[in-house]
């Protein structure tokens, strides 16, 4: 219990004194995970919606696969991305290994299935409601996707935030492809793993509390910016 108290105390001081290292790795955590979130959402939101409205032969199989990929072990994704990006690997010429870009790639792979699956679930119900209307208006496929995405935006926000939660707290993949290099690819989660390894539990916990606070902060900020739960809207 003493460790937790020490952790809270040092978290407090780190934040109050605006520790330069803490600021840097927190910003990098945000940079990596938010970029991954934007890219993954751009892929997963239309994909999940498309799966809800389009009927095709292997639809059920595709959806099952997508659901299964939600549980993709990050450390395996990290290893695969590492092998692809290694100088001896097929994409080695790009020189991306041990850069924030490599971390973003790994996180996009991890969270895209999650966001797409939740999107599909939400859109399926919305589509049942909108089906007759959109068909009778003779809309094109792309118009239907856009309408559903716009009208289902609150649900999609939840899908994206779930993806963000998985990305910002993830350590297995980014440790492998980022390498936890000080001043280059160190983020909050890898720093926590490092400090735990050094036996400095107070600092590790302090970083953990900062990470939790950051995740809460981002969620609140996005809800506030998108004006959910206000002015009589749901």
């Amino acid at each position, binding site marked *: 219990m003493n460790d937790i108290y020490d952790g809270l105390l040092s978290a407090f001081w780190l934040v109050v004194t605006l520790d330069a290292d803490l600021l840097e790795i927190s910003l990098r955590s945000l940079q990596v995970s*938010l970029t991954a*979130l934007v890219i993954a959402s751009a892929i997963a939101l239309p994909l999940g919606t498309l799966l809800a409205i389009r009927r095709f032969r292997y639809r059920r199989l595709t959806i099952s696969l997508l659901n299964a990929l939600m549980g993709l072990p990050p450390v395996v994704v990290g290893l695969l991305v590492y092998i692809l990006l290694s*100088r*001896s690997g097929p994409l080695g010429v790009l020189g991306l290994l041990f850069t924030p870009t490599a971390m973003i790639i790994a996180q996009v792979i991890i969270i895209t299935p999650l966001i797409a699956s939740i999107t599909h679930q939400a859109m399926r119900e919305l589509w049942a409601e909108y089906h007759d209307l959109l068909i009778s208006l003779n809309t094109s496929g792309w118009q239907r996707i856009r309408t559903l995405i716009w009208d289902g935006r609150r649900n999609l926000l939840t899908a994206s935030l779930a993806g963000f939660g998985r990305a910002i707290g993830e350590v297995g993949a980014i440790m492998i492809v980022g390498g936890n290099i000080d*001043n280059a690819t160190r983020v909050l989660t890898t720093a926590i793993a490092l400090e735990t390894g050094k036996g*400095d539990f107070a600092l590790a916990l302090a970083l953990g509390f900062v990470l939790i606070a950051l995740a809460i902060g981002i969620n609140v900020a*996005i809800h506030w*910016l998108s004006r959910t739960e206000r002015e009589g809207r749901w």
Partner: protein
Amino acid sequence: MIHRILALATAVTLGTAVLAEEMKLAVTTSFENSGLADVLLPAIKEDLGLDVQLLVVGTGQALRLGQAGDVDAILVHSRTAEEAFVAEGYGTHRREIMYNDFVFIGPAGDPAGIAVAGSAAEALQRISAAEPAFVSRGDESGTHKKERALWAEAGLSPETFGAWYREVGAGMGASLNTAAGLDAYILADRASWLNFGNPAGLALLYSGAPALFNQYAFLAVNPERHSHVRHDLAVQLEGWLTSRRAADLINGYTINGETLFIFNAGPE
């Protein structure tokens, strides 16, 4: 809503690129945990204007990174593996830089009585006779390889041990955490032990035998194998690491008044 979220995201995602000379060096966890890097890296930056990016991994993974050309040089401590690395043409040559030593850590009460052992091999024989919990790195790191060499020297083979011998497959710090939790014996390098923040009921029980010396060597990755490596920077770094200035910093580095590393780089 979308516009505002996008604006927020762009504001955060716009990172700034750094344009200093930088190279990647794979080092062992024990080197990083010692804290010496925090002394050397700023001095290197000051003298050479060179940003050395450290990848902290076990010796096994460091050698793999060098083989694949993912780093420009490695600094590790496992002589046989290093010599094989050079012999296979992955490194240009091996340059010894400094050494520190391994120590036996265990429960302060010392149930196996290794504190009075006459040699490292005898200490291990006493442990295998008493069968207290023993934590092994189990990750092909330099420390793990050293531990297995010591067992072999004592005429014992860990494969035949019972449940008291636990391979955790983790870095030095994480293994020390496990040993602290189990009140177990463990082989650690002195630097990691002195810097370790969570000793719980453990104490340093046996050290000082010549068999426990731990030589660190610097190996630049061979540019003939990987044309993209920054061999020029690796050579610069090697020159600096073997210089008078590095010697003073390495020999002068202490924790709680104890010297950790002894500089022993010879002329080329």
